[in-house]
């Protein structure tokens, strides 16, 4: 117990070091690029007198090390600064947009599993036949086609040509006048479902289709290929042959014996794609005007809105550090052979 406690404290201390190093690098990087935060704050056409006034107001006239210390001091006190372009507290900006991104990522993840796995099984089952070839082409395209390009193609084909689904946003804005969404969690599928607002639910789900599909294309391909490979391997095993010899139906063998054993490596892959989904959401959100963290970060970078960039860095890095720690602890708990050092 003591050992475990010591380990956690040590890891946390190390994480603080990582965060300090990271913020320092990002802080310096965002400042050495020539830009003018004051003119971003005021508007593109502000004059020198106004810029000087705002430089003083934002503390930009101080030397860089002093500015960095000010920033770190504020963050420790829970103040992440105000975004220069929106003048809102960065922490509020992040927390208010987090549900939008998380909902998209979770739906994409779900799609990857419920579409990718059966495709992989089908492909393995009909190994070498036409459906296998089709699935392999689909997964190859999913893995290799850039998501921003796929997103534009889907918009053009499904929305523009066929009039299906929606081009932008998370729900139709006019819903507010007829079926307003009660914002409980910010996860609109959940919010509309628990309040029984089915008109809005349908609308929200319809808006999710194109962006989620775009985002899920890569993990769908990955999961299908992984499932196919491991399924093929498992199907060669002796116990499958034995099952067949007993006359158990092929479908039962496939889903109850083979898939159960084949799914483990696939689960690992799904875990790994979470990182892809989070970063992939950035440009998918941009294409579909999603209004989540992706849009926020993209505009922050384009504007060199450094408090917002710093905030997203802290948020992302903090998230990774915590998830890593939890995973390590969970592994140690699950497998006593792993020793915490």
């Amino acid at each position, binding site marked *: 117990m003591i050992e475990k406690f010591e380990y956690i404290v040590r890891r946390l201390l190390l994480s603080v070091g990582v965060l300090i190093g990271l913020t320092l690098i990002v802080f310096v990087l965002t400042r050495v*690029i*020539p*830009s*003018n935060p004051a*003119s*971003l704050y*005021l*508007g*593109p*056409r*502000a*004059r*020198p*007198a*106004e810029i000087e006034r705002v430089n003083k107001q934002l503390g930009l006239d101080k030397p860089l090390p002093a500015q960095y210390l000010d920033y770190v001091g504020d963050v420790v006190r829970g103040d992440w600064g*105000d975004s220069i*372009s*929106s*003048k*809102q507290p960065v922490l509020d*900006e992040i927390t*208010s*947009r987090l549900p939008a991104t998380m909902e998209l990522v979770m739906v994409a993840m779900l799609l990857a599993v*419920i*579409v990718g796995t*059966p495709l992989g*099984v*089908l492909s393995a089952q009909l190994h070498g036949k036409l459906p296998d070839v089709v699935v392999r082409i689909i997964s190859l395209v999913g893995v290799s086609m850039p998501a921003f390009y796929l997103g534009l193609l889907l*918009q*053009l084909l499904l*929305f*523009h040509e066929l*009039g*299906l*689904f*929606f*081009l*932008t*946003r*998370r729900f139709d*804005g*006019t819903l*507010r*006048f007829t079926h307003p969404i009660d914002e409980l969690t910010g996860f609109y599928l959940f919010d509309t479902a628990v309040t029984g607002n089915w008109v809005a639910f*349908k*609308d929200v*789900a*319809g808006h999710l*289709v194109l962006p989620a599909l775009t985002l899920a294309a890569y993990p769908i391909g990955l999961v299908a290929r992984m499932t196919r490979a491991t399924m093929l391997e498992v199907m060669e095993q002796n116990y499958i042959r034995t099952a067949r010899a007993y006359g158990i139906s092929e*479908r039962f063998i496939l*889903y109850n014996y083979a898939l159960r054993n084949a799914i483990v490596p696939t689960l690992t892959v799904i875990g790994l794609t979470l990182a892809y989904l989070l970063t992939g959401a950035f440009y998918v959100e941009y294409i579909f*005007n999603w*209004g989540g963290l992706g*849009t*926020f970060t993209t*505009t922050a970078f*384009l*504007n*060199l809105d450094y408090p917002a960039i710093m905030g997203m860095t802290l948020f992302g890095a903090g998230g990774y550090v915590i998830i890593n720690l939890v995973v390590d602890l969970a592994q140690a708990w699950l497998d006593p052979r792993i020793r915490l050092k």
Partner: protein
Amino acid sequence: MTLRKLLILVLVLTVLIIPVGAQAQDTTVLRVASTASVTTWDPNLSFSTEALYMANIYEPLLWINAPGAAEPFTPALATSWEKSEDGLTWTFHLREGVTFHDGEALTSTAVKRSIERTQAVGGASFIWLPLASIDAPDDLTVVFNLTYPAPLDLIASSLYGAWIISPKALDAVEADETYFEQGVDAGTGPYMLSDYTADVEVVLGRFENYWGGWQDGQFENVLINIVPDAVTQQQLLEGGEVDLALRLPPASYDSFASNPDYAVEVNSTFFNYVGFLNTTRPPLDNKLVRQAISYAIPYDQIIEVGAEGLGTQSRGPVPTGVYPYSEDVPQYTQNLDMARDLLAQAGFEGGGFELRLTYAAENTIEEAFAPIIADALAEIGITVNIEPMLFNQQWEEAKADPTQAQDIFLVLYWPTYSDAGSDNLWSLFRSSDAPFFNLSYYNNPDYDALIDEANVLAGTDRDAAQVLYTQAMQMLVDDAPALYLMDVGNWYAVPTYLEGFEYNPNYAFATFFYPIHLAE
């Protein structure tokens, strides 16, 4: 769950969420797509794209009309105004019975305090530079005292820094400077801010007590979708998801113009493209070289490629339609022989030097026509290296050290308020200690003297000032410190079921939703 069940479930879900056609149009909601993001809800600070919303929520003392209108101004919160003989005192008489959205009454104190706060904290505070003090002799009279004669009517009708704000909100923002940023409004305009989701939408709702009143067919709500991409806006408009798209791709002009469901009108704007030539070092410090370059540019081709032909070649740095634009200012036309001769006279027979051109990477029009400039200059032996940068960085580099800066700087410019004499001519070419927007680093005492005199004269005698301005612009064309590339043309595709959409180049960043109504 078996594979088949799963597939059926997915299919059923898909069918369930496929939308069932667009909604019928009614007068409740006008759906708009716009690129305008919000950098502040503080009307005193506002100096950026949120002007679109401000212009529907707040009002100034008066509006300036589009060029060619019978009257130059439309009264807004002031019903009449006059200036003293010497142009130093302006008196405005306020409209009676106007209330702010929060119920406060419009008074002279509200006007005085609104403008004084803009002077103190505004992004566009410089527009009030000539203002010495404001008096409020009675509830409905405001007197502006100036330090030198200036066209105060043009300043008071500015899209930035001239909004009149409720005194109650001014009290609140004095106590907490971020008061407005939560999405609070305190104007007198026809619409109120009902909701705002950053990067996604702005919702405006009707202000029932608007002094202008309401008629049948005008919209109760305006829902503005913030959509940065023009092609996406086009798809939304064509898909019936919005009624009005305020930024359509230039290339879609023909398809909308030939579609009977849309009314398409081309307007001139107060935007123009200028290419600053760095006059601080050889070879561009030589007037003959600058003239040669001016002769080498294929202006028609730039307008064709950059704006689908919807633009006109500039006459100097003042765009068509804005004071003090003049037809008497000459233009260069492409003449490569003349260009080569001038280069030879300057001692650069056959060119043989390199120039670095920078443009704003986010501007797709500059991206389209920058290579045309490079190709044209290659014809006379000058190599142009094109460098796209984010505008912010492009500008920072240009302001840092002129002798190390770029050779050619492309910029899209427009006057802050409708006076290109005190803006374009002064800001872009008058010399100053540190460069700001004079990115040719042009330094000509004769020009400075003309502009300074004209600036003051414009406050009392605009026609006399025009003569001096015209002279100054002729000087700028002959001296060629910059390439005057094109005045931008603009168009909107308005569905025929909407009426009342008006474009006013004085307020290019605003669209007024109040006059828009359903066609009978």
